[in-house]
């Protein structure tokens, strides 16, 4: 168990292979609605599968399927690392 366990952080700050629980999604209504419609709701566990270079998008696994989220939007997702 690491020290920052109970700290909230941004999805973009996670490293590949790390799991986390979604705390909240900031940002525009449309995108937030979209993500929650796809199953990214508070308390959902996600895992970072890969991160594209050059500030590219983040590929995560959530509810048994894989999703790619642009870096800008991913940086608005607040998570609690597991």
């Amino acid at each position, binding site marked *: 168990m690491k020290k920052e366990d109970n700290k909230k952080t941004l999805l973009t700050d996670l490293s590949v292979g790390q799991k986390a629980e979604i705390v*909240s*999604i900031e940002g*525009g*209504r*449309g*995108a*937030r*609605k*979209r*993500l*929650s*419609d*796809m*199953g990214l*709701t*508070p*308390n*959902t566990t996600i895992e970072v599968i*890969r*991160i*594209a*270079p*050059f*500030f*590219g*998008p983040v*590929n995560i696994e959530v*509810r*048994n*399927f*894989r*999703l*790619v*989220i*642009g*870096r*800008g*939007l991913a940086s608005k997702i607040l998570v609690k690392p597991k």
Partner: protein
Amino acid sequence: MNGGKKLNIVLAGQANVGKSVIFNYLTGLHQHIGNWPGKTIEKAEGTLFYKDHVIDVVDLPGIYSFSTYSVEELISREYIITQNPDFIINVIDSTHLERNLIFTLQLLELEKPVVIALNMSDLLKQERIEIDFRKLEDILGVPVIPVSAVHGKGITELIDSGLKLIENYSPPENIRLKYGNETEKAVEEISGQINKTINIYPVRWTAVKLLEGDSEIIKECEKENITAIRNANSLAEDLKRIHGHDASVLIADERCNIVFKITCEVMKILPSKKISFRDRFDSISSDKIWGYPVMIIMLILVFLFIFKFGDFLSGIIEIPYKNLQATIANSVGTSFPASLVTSAFDSILALILIALPYILPFYFVLHFLENWGYLSRVAFLSDSLMHKLGVHGKACFPILLGFGCNVPACLSCRIMETHRERFLTALLSVFVPCSAVSVIIMGLVGKFVGMEWAIGLYFLAVIVIFAVGKIASKIITGEPMELIMEMPDYKSPSLKTIIFLTWYRLKNFVYSAAPIIIISGIIIGAIHSAGWSNYISDFLKPVTVNWLGLPLYTGILLIFGFLRKELILLMLAALAGTMNFNEVLTPVQMLTLAIVSMFYIPCVATITALKKEFGWKKALGITVFKIVFAIILAGIISRILTFFMN
């Protein structure tokens, strides 16, 4: 049994679940493309003749929810509500049950008869998943049919159970799937205040949407149900206070929880298999380092395939084409009306000559990569690059297509979510040098000025695309979208699906482009045989000769290029009387002509595609912009080159 009755059914589901395969299976050759009134979005429509029934089948676009995020979502829900289909087939990818059921729950809220097609059920064993579909049927209260669309299994059962369902259908009275206590209370309270006689939307659904703050539904209800809206707002505030999240997020979360519970009850995942070759390729092809070389190799292979195949096909077609052209020219004579007939035939043949050889393999490869799952990896890897152009990763796809032909590029902009992204992507794709432009670049500059200059022109195109993207994304209003895309697993491409989609797209292109190409062919033919070519060249003299420094006769070339850009090169040979262009043009003139040809206008087929997607105003806007831009750019470059090269 309601024998001989006309029915209307709808296929709905998320993207990549095999809807189009089922659609194709149901309707076979009886397909047509239709728009419903006032909407520019397209739906695939077909007819199924089944046991006395004439069934109109509509394939809605793949969507994730019925909110207002994308054009498709909005239109799909409007279609279901206003067109009132007899029943809906909800196609589900059974290997991703949980994700798919989130949409199913929203579909069920529309209170129409629904049959669930548990597609890809043949893959369950391989994926080591077990689904108790009888139990799922019980929980959801609708028929659930295991289907394997690729193998045609379960499709008859699907239609049968749908027909049985609507024989004596009454909407379920008690709601089986309930939200959390507070949410339910709020929904009930709002439901009571909704004016049922005026609203065409289901009451409970409307209540949920008002609570979610859905802007479209609020607009719809503003006149008649202002109290309900006000109440919904205050109830949403209450919910936010209790749960700490927006009502819309809360509702989505509760929906997800219902789905999670259902999934746990009906689905079992058996211990997993070992890492397959597919997984290994997946990790290489989306790797942050290795992904890029893999992508470059793939793209080179794709382009090689398309150009080789295109050359091969056009080689086959060319001889009969020339013979036919000669036969027509001989048989109709040389009178003025006869020359119009000849140009009309020429245009049709020209259409076949572009549509078939290059567009056909393009569509085929595109759907192959899409079906296989590779395109999503390209979008993932190129997202950050695309953001520099003001769009997101999915736009790489139309832009790549543009290298073959701008027409499919414009049409495929539909994969973008909003009007803004679609228009921006189309604008970028029409600046991509298509295969006809490549013919000019290679045949004129590559051959007579130097290969390095030809490659330089491609670089120029890239720079122009970046500049246009940068500027246009600043000018065009609206919030830029972020990439949200499902990353599908690699799967074995289904040849049947790929061929079907290729055929469907090709047909669509021919229907939309043919009339315009033929009409403009006739007009240009008339101008030519009336002997006005010289007047036109004279008229264009200030631009061609004075500003661009080109010979006088290039004026008419540019007019012909409007039809098909490679005509510029063919006509140049005819007018100059030689294929050795270096005898008639200086290197600077060749470069200038190539630059003008690259950018000066989208060809008529592309303009038609633009018009189809965005309307006349925007299509003409792009056209005018390109003409002005190309002339200014080519003139400036010509001056710079003259300064340095002489």
